[in-house]
């Protein structure tokens, strides 16, 4: 394209002052985006990928952040030096932005129609016209019964719908540039695909530029034209997506691409191994009280007849989106919740008919690693105390004298420095915290570890490392894993068998290879199609004019 770039960021440097220390958020960052194209800014957490966009929008709070150098040229103006009035001309009208967590980013006390219309009202559109256009926008982004739902509140919509509403708000004034900061990270895979497609369609309709900030290689590969790779506040690589994927120039890019799952052969389950866990016809219903005057009371079946088995030494992957029942299943398996009907048998014994001593023994055998290591580790305890807590509860597992040595051994095993045993969780990174959680789970030498979305909150490269660790300890101790995840790629390289859950039922079950290459159920197929592959050469053809 011979046109001048829509937005050019030149040599931007931003620093943050916190508690006497100065942190360089981004250093000398330059990128540009053109009309009608999608630029992806790819980076892991801490890479500074959102900072340059926040600076462009003027959203960096001036203490503690300072823009120390650089320019952001947009249609002849340097956006970093705007007055307040000039800024209001730009924001929402010529450049718009959507954010990661739409529930938190929509004002909970105002109706969505009002909020969408506000995007137009503040730029001079008369209220009645703004309202009419808001209805049209909501329809365009795919909110059913848009006119009726204008007065509904954000919490009354699903996650995907909320992001659509944010998109409607953003494109209301037909901006020249839309910045999307991790727009789909909090959403289910199938919804993610829809949202990204919507964004691409809007881009084509209006010819606006789109900046997509993400950590997901698949998203970049499927939806972006050009990309910028960031690490530690610096740009390490730029170029057309196809080029970068084919021949990455920088080491870091190569590592990132290498960490993407899907390279290894499928694992094969061992049918002869001992049966550990048998789940039969598990049902769990909840009774919801009706909302005043609007809905009658209803019964919701979170689990609707779930049956499967787990053998020794195998990894069972359970994949489902939100509302599939996988979280409820995890709670029931851990005996944190009683099912409405059905049975769970561990080594032949009915888990829910156990005596107190039997339950106590059961807990030693079945351990868990949760999703959010920040929440599951007590911030006031040291690492040693956290790992050792299990021995305090089950003193027969290990006498007190041996504990310190055992802690250090575990830390080494999970790849951490044993000298850090007396530190507190906040002194570690996310991936390291998850390793601590794994060490804790290992401390009682269990037979089964249930990983409830254990790697979902981690960066891609860290994810790969943690999964490697899990594979190692599985080999070492003959452990079984129940690995719960919300999308398929992550279990591809680690699971022997896969269950796909949808609306409380298992829609597909089988060895990983079979599920991935020859899915039986429609839903599995949809799920597979929705997960963006980190391969730009296999983009689904976008059918012109079709909407979601």
């Amino acid at each position, binding site marked *: 394209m011979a046109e001048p770039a829509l937005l050019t960021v030149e040599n931007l440097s931003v620093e943050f002052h916190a508690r006497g220390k100065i942190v360089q958020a981004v250093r000398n960052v330059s990128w540009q985006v053109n009309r009608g194209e999608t630029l992806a800014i790819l980076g892991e957490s801490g890479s500074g990928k959102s900072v340059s966009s926040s600076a462009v*929008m*003027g*959203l960096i709070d001036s203490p503690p952040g300072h823009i120390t150098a650089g320019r952001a040229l947009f249609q002849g103006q340097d956006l970093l030096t705007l007055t*307040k009035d000039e*800024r*209001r*001309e*730009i*924001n*929402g*009208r010529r450049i*718009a*932005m959507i*954010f990661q*967590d739409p529930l*938190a*980013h*929509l*004002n*909970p*006390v*105002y109706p969505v129609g009002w909020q969408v219309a*506000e*995007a137009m009202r*503040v*730029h001079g559109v008369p209220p009645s016209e703004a309202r009419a256009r808001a209805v049209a926008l909501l329809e365009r982004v795919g909110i059913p019964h848009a006119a009726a739902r204008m007065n509904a*509140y954000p*919490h*009354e919509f699903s996650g995907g719908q909320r992001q659509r509403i*944010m998109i409607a*708000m953003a494109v209301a004034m037909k901006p020249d540039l839309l910045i999307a900061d991790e727009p789909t990270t909090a959403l289910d895979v199938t919804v993610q695909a829809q949202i990204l497609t919507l964004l691409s369609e809007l881009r084509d309709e209006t010819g606006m530029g789109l900046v997509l900030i993400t950590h997901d290689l698949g998203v970049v590969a499927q939806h972006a034209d050009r990309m910028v790779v960031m690490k530690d506040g610096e740009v390490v690589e730029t170029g057309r997506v196809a080029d970068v994927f084919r021949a990455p120039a920088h080491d870091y890019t190569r590592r990132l691409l290498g960490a993407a799952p899907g390279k290894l052969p499928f694992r094969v389950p061992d049918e002869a191994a001992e049966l550990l866990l048998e789940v039969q016809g598990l049902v769990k219903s909840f009774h919801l009280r009706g*909302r*005043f005057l609007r809905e009658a009371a209803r019964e919701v079946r979170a689990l609707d007849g779930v049956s499967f088995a787990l053998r020794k030494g195998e990894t069972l992957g359970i994949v489902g989106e939100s509302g599939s029942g996988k979280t409820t299943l995890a709670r029931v398996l851990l005996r944190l919740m009683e099912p409405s009907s059905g049975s769970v048998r561990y080594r032949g014994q009915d888990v829910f008919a156990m005596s107190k001593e039997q339950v106590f023994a059961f807990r030693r055998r079945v351990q868990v690693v949760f999703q959010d290591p920040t929440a599951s580790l007590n911030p006031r305890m040291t690492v040693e105390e956290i790992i050792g807590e299990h021995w305090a509860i089950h003193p027969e597992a290990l006498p007190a004298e041996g504990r310190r040595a055992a802690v250090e051994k575990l830390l080494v095993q999970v790849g951490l420095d044993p000298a850090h045993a007396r530190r507190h969780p906040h002194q570690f990174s996310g991936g390291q915290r998850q390793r601590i959680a794994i060490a804790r789970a290992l401390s009682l030498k269990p037979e089964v570890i249930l990983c409830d979305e254990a790697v979902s909150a981690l960066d891609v490269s860290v994810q790969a490392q943690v999964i490697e660790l899990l594979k190692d300890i599985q080999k070492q101790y003959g452990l079984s894993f129940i690995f719960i995840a919300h999308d398929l790629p992550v279990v591809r390289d680690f699971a022997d068998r896969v269950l796909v859950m949808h609306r409380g039922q298992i829609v597909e079950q089988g060895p990983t290879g079979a599920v991935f290459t020859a899915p039986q159920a429609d839903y599995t197929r949809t799920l597979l199609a929705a997960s963006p592959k980190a391969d730009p050469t296999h983009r689904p053809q976008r059918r012109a004019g079709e909407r979601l």
Partner: protein
Amino acid sequence: MTGFLGKRMLWSAGSLIGLVILVFFMARLTGSPADLYLPIDAPNEMREEFARLHGFDLPLWQQFANFLRDLLVFDFGDSLRQGRPAVDLVLEALPTTLLLAFWSIGIALMVAVITGALAAWRPNGIFDRIATLLSLIGASLPNFWVAIVGVLVFAVQLRWVPTSGTGTVVQWVLPVAVLAIRPCGLIVQVARSTMISVLSAPYVKTAEAKGVPRRAIIFVHALRNAMLPVITVAGDQAAGIINGAVIVETIFGFPGVGRLMIDSISYRDFAVIQAGVMITAIAIFLLNVLIDIAYALLDPRTRAA
């Protein structure tokens, strides 16, 4: 809505009855009020006669049984001091107190919310520091001191307002102002800190990205979200005033519930104490219902519950 109110009423009725029974026994444990109504040198026969006249010579359980029987028809008995039905006395005093509460909390709320919001606009700026200082002073000053100083300065020295009384609107200025100072100080604190935390909420970022002007961000987007804790504190303060802003009522000569209750307690006027407790408790129950409604209006997420 009716189900919600009905359940609330049932719960409250239980506590109300428990409260009145408690007051019944506690008051009577202090002995016969005869001594307080008769002059010091009244002979014992007079005291006994007084007790007989008002049923204080009966054994306690019998007094209680009579009390319950009368309670069923909402008869709290007659005031010992005035010989009129106790309920009448309380209901005559209640409007004054309710008006005092309404005006003082209303004004305090308005002033405090705006001040708190403006202070949060630029935290640690000049306005914020002054507002914080004044609000801390306001929340700490004792009522009676402020009232007397208010009278001495504004009524006696400056002659801007009359000293006391209830007849005209201008006579309410000083008492309402005195009553409003402490709640205002407290609410400024709450409003300010809630606003500061709300202003760092993600949806404020969205509004900035939309190009919403700063004033609208503060007063439209942030303020409504910050109101919930403010309403809680305001409701609490209002309940305190309904219970009886005794000092203000005494100093300014307002015939409100607070003064009535203190006098009744000093004079062991059991009927009025019981009626007063009951009616005040009902008023506070209604206040809490109002607060719940306010919550539901402010935050649509609570309506679903």
